[in-house]
Every structure is written in structure tokens, then in C-alpha cells.
């Protein structure tokens, strides 16, 4: 038995907690309390290998050794097998960073996630944190914006709009007050990367927001987090407190004389509030109804002032771009999709989790190479890419390269990078119906094609599923889809036809009774 002090990492992440990480941590504490070894438990973020959660790591002279998935009942056995020395066990995976799923990733935005104690500023700095902010503080607003533009960074919230251009617009505005809003509404099914980052490396988001503030001349930031993420909300609030106490937020950031404050706002269960104009309404305490653009938020946003709205991962990618340079970042990726994307594997998948890879990786590599096929062991039939408004992709198209342009050429969408895997058991008419139903539930109600179209679409699909006049009803459904696509004010109504039409196009047999 070892005599040196031992650090054991047990993730605090909500997904790890959902399968018993807290209970495992208690059990380790209890058993360690009876032994002679000096054991410290650190609650880190997740490494993103969610199928191995609770994945615990023991620090040894040979590096951090992984064990998982661990249940409380396994803990005693692990102690007996000598896991404090990193010894073998049926749950052992060797050094965490040698696990192929992890080793084959390109971790830029998520470089620290899972490695550190999320709320330790010492850990944060020791692993490259604050380097980007310090460079930004020594730089001019225009130079920061140029670095971001040069890096090729595009919005990770779904639309892929070039971040530098958005920032340039806000920088050019004359205003008494400007705002930075982090969009942490992450409503798409199959996505959880924003959550993992906020729970596992919250300072990284703060750093990105402060840099954005310095770049465009904003002094106040809001993080709009969905209410379904209580742990992310609590973690971000504590992270902000820590930064305020240490002077990294407030009237004089890091002694620079520049000011920035950040507030957390909690959503209230409306998917549409992820759309930027709806989010701004919600931040003003109103119904989350979409607003007509222009004016764009970068010119007239929150409280009528110039406002940058960026996804959590867009902002969290900024610190590494600042610290390592635009050239470093744009070395990853291909074409006009530069850098890395946090792909998320969910649904019926054997090895679900977070995979950060340069753009251009194929869907097959993600789903089969990383994901290892289905959890159920059945054949894969389809993948829904890009959330509830994204297309269903058939297995015959899995060689699709994952970048903004290539996916759109294939009538699909990258969105926020979520991939939901379905086995052969899925019924695609039911999935098409769900797309319409979801739109019916979540429509903000402002425009008719979406509000009424989704209801009629659902009813027509009910008829098709019941086998009534299938051919005629499919024509009507196509008409409704056309109308929603062309006539909706925002992408909620405008993209709901994407899953519906892709399901019909690729899986017509499921609509024929």
C-alpha cells in the first residue's frame, strides 16, 4: 500500500452525477477514512467520456489512471485491488489520456475541462488560463477584433456567423453602454457541450466574455443559462464571485483600469429563448417573442444598446485564440470551417460523450470510430445532426464531412454539433410528427406559418400514420413545409421542415403504412 498522499478525481459534472458520481465520492471518502493513506478527493469536470461515468482518476507517478464506470459497490474492491497505486482492475483503463477516445481528439476549447478543479484559479492559471486575457489587456480593441477575425472563428450556436465581423460591427458603434451576452440556452436535444464547459471550466467562459468586452468596449455581460441546468448556474455564479474577489471582474480588471461585470440570468423553459432576439426580450424580463431584424443586436440589442450575443463555446474559444494566436487556431479545420468543433454523441450510442475535433472529420468516424455503434447493439439507421431542427441523415451518407459548407451541400446542418443516433427500431414518420409537435409546443406564436403550420403539419402526419390518403396527404404536408420554410420569421418555423422533409426523402417506406 502506498504511503504517498494520493489525489483522486471524481467528476462533479451533472451527467456524471446522474449516474452516481456523488455516491462514489462519498464511498471513497468513507473507505479512505479508515485507511492510512492520505487521500484528497478533487471534484473535477468531466473528461467527456460519458459512457465511462462515473470515471474516477487516481494520480500516480505514471500519470492519472482511469477507472470507470464505477458504482459505490465497486469502491471497496478498487481499494483492495490497489487502485491507489494505479493497479489493474476490470474497471481500469490505464492512463486517462491514452484512452483512444480521448487521445484522438484535438482539445483546444476543452483543453482544461476534466483536468482541473473547475473553481480553482490556481489550477486555471497553471493550465494556460488568463494568458489570453493578459494579452488582450495589453492590446487594442481593434487588434483583438482582428485576431478573432483572422482566426476564422465562426459562431458555434448554430448559424456559423463569423465572430470577428460581428465584433467589428459592435466596436464601430458609438454608445454609452454596450453589452456581451453569452447564449447558454443550449436547448437542442443531443447537445450538452455548453453545460460541460460551464460546469467543468467556468473561468474559460468568463475569460472569453471579458476579452469580448475589451474588444468592443462593453462593460457589462450577461450569461443566459437555461433553467434545466441548475449545476451550471450555480457553478457560473460561484466562478463570478471568485473573479470579483480577486479583481478579475469589477471596476479595475487585473489592475488595468478597465471595467467589466457579469451577471447570470436563468431561463424559464422556453426553447425559443435560444434565438438571439428572443433571448434579449427575455433578458429584459419580457415574453420571449422574436423581434424582426434589422436592427441587428450588434447595433441595437439589449436595452437598445449595441450587444454581442455569442454562444458559450464561441466565447470559450476566444482565450486560446488570443493566447496562441490566430494562426495556431486556423491551422485546424478546412475550407471556411476553421478550428475545432465540440461534437456531441447522444441517443442510442455505445460510447456517448464529447468529441472535440477539427472540422472535416466524417460523420462515420464520429459515430462508428468514436461512438462504437449503438448502445442497444442494433444496427444504426439514422443520425439526426444539429438538433431538433436538423436533418435525419441515413447510414448511406455517413461519409459526409462535418463542416458548415459540406453539410449544407448535403441538405444537412451542423447546428451546435449534436449527433443523435437512432437504431433500426426508429419509426421515421413518428420522428417527423415529433418535429412538428415540438415546433407547436415551442413556437413563440408571432407568425402564422410556424404557429399554425406546425399544428396542421402534426395533424396531417397523424393522418398519414393512420394510413389515410397517404399520397394526397404527403402532398399537403410538402405544401405546409414549403410555406413554413419560406414564410416563417425565424429558423424555428423555417427549419422545422428540415427533419420532416429529410425523413420523407430518405425513409419514404415509413410513411407508406
Amino acid at each position: 500500500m502506498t504511503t504517498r498522499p494520493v489525489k483522486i478525481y471524481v467528476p462533479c459534472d451533472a451527467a456524471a452525477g446522474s449516474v452516481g458520481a456523488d455516491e462514489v465520492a462519498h464511498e471513497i471518502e468513507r473507505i479512505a477514512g479508515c485507511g492510512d493513506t492520505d487521500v484528497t478527493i478533487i471534484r473535477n469536470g468531466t473528461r467527456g467520456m460519458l459512457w465511462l461515468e462515473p470515471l474516477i482518476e487516481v494520480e500516480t507517478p505514471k500519470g492519472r489512471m482511469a477507472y470507470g464506470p464505477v458504482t459505490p459497490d465497486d469502491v471497496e474492491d478498487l481499494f483492495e485491488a490497489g487502485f491507489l497505486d494505479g493497479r489493474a482492475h476490470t474497471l481500469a483503463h490505464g492512463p486517462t489520456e491514452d484512452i483512444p477516445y480521448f487521445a484522438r481528439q484535438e482539445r483546444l476549447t476543452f483543453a482544461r475541462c476534466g483536468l482541473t478543479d473547475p473553481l480553482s484559479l490556481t489550477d486555471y492559471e497553471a493550465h494556460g488560463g488568463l494568458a489570453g486575457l493578459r494579452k488582450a489587456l495589453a492590446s487594442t480593441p481593434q487588434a483583438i477584433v482582428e485576431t478573432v477575425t483572422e482566426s476564422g472563428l465562426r459562431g458555434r450556436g448554430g448559424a456559423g456567423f463569423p465572430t470577428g465581423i460581428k465584433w467589428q460591427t459592435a466596436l464601430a458603434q458609438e454608445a454609452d453602454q454596450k453589452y456581451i451576452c453569452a447564449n447558454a440556452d443550449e436547448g437542442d436535444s443531443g447537445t450538452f457541450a455548453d453545460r460541460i464547459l460551464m460546469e467543468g471550466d467556468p473561468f474559460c467562459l468568463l475569460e472569453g466574455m471579458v476579452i469580448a468586452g475589451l474588444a468592443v468596449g462593453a462593460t457589462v455581460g450577461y450569461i443566459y443559462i437555461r433553467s434545466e441546468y441548475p449545476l451550471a448556474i450555480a457553478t457560473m455564479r460561484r466562478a463570478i464571485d471568485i473573479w470579483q474577489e480577486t479583481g478579475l471582474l469589477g471596476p479595475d480588471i487585473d489592475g488595468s483600469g478597465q471595467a467589466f461585470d457579469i451577471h447570470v440570468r436563468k431561463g424559464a423553459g422556453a426553447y425559443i429563448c435560444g434565438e438571439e432576439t428572443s433571448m434579449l426580450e427575455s433578458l429584459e424580463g419580457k415574453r420571449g417573442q422574436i423581434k424582426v431584424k434589422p436592427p441587428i443586436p450588434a447595433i441595437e440589442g439589449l436595452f437598445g444598446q449595441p450587444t454581442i450575443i455569442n454562444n458559450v463555446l464561441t466565447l470559450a474559444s476566444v482565450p486560446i485564440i488570443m493566447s496562441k494566436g490566430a494562426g495556431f487556431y486556423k491551422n485546424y479545420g478546412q475550407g471556411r470551417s476553421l478550428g475545432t468543433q465540440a461534437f456531441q454523441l447522444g441517443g442510442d450510442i455505445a460510447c456517448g460523450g464529447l468529441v472535440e475535433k477539427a472540422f472535416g472529420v466524417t460523420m462515420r468516424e464520429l459515430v462508428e470510430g468514436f461512438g462504437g455503434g449503438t448502445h442497444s447493439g442494433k444496427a444504426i439507421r439514422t443520425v439526426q445532426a444539429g438538433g431538433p431542427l436538423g436533418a435525419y441523415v441515413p447510414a448511406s451518407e455517413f461519409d459526409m464531412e462535418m463542416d458548415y459548407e459540406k453539410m449544407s451541400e448535403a441538405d444537412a446542418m451542423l447546428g451546435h454539433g449534436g449527433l443523435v443516433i437512432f437504431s433500426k427500431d426508429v419509426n421515421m414518420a413518428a420522428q417527423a410528427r415529433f418535429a412538428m409537435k415540438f415546433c407547436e409546443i415551442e413556437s413563440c406564436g408571432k407568425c402564422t406559418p410556424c404557429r399554425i403550420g406546425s399544428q396542421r403539419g402534426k395533424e396531417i402526419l397523424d393522418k398519414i400514420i393512420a394510413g389515410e390518403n397517404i399520397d394526397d396527404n404527403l402532398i399537403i404536408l410538402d405544401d405546409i413545409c414549403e410555406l413554413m420554410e419560406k414564410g416563417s420569421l425565424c429558423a424555428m418555423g423555417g427549419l422545422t421542415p428540415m427533419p420532416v422533409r429529410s425523413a420523407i426523402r430518405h425513409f419514404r417506406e415509413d410513411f407508406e403504412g
Partner: protein
Amino acid sequence: MVTVLQSSHSRIRQICAGYDNRPDALIEILHDVQDEAGFLAKEALVEIADALNISRADIHGVVTFYHDFRLVPLDGPDIRICRAEACQAVGAECLATHAAKTCDTKITAAYCLGNCALGPAVMMDGKLYGRVDAERFNQLLKQRGET
């Protein structure tokens, strides 16, 4: 010594004042009031409207827009079963049917709880659970009953 019992009336004023009575904090205020009282009573909404100097109609519009807010108390624990696509792919619909049969309390549908790699996902009183099949659901309910 005089003990002043705090009425819910002044408690709501206090919550609003904590946000400087700012109308843009309405959603935060509604959350706080609902978290404490379990639901949003009509009297509470009148009180908030008054404190923030906004109309009752505006508040009604906000409360009814957001799925989180309720005008009546829950009749039991707050149980949400995720019914979105990733959980559908691993049997969320079967779980929901099972839960409706076994549970006396009303169960809320959620659309993604951010646990899509470990579905079906369920949230009970704010705590997230993953890989919840019918058996685990029963266990969780039992545990809840015991605590």
C-alpha cells in the same frame, strides 16, 4: 421582545427589492417566488406588478409564455422526464408510459436535460438522473418516498 411574523406580502416585496425592483429582473423574481412558495399565486403576481411598476397583464403574458411557471401548486414531487429525440432513441416514451401508470403525481415532459449520452434522462426536484429504465425509475421513486 416582539416577534414580527413576516407575511408573504412583505417577503415578495423583499425579493423584488433584492433586484432593485427592476422590471428586467422579472423572470428571476418569478423564479425566486415560485421556488419559495411552490407556485405563483394570483396575489403574488399583483404584488410583483405593483413593486416593479408594470401592468398585471404584462406579468400574465410573461408567466404564461414560459413553461417553467405554474399558477397552481404541484401535487407531489417535481418529476420531469425528458421526451426529446436523444432520449426517445433509448426508450423515453416507454418510460413515460410506465411512469404515468405507476405514479400518482403529474409528470412533466422536459425537452432535453443535457444528459443525452446517458438517456433516458429524468430530473426529480432538480436532481438529474441518467439511464433511467422502468426499474430504476421505481427505485428512485421509492428512495424519494423514504427521504
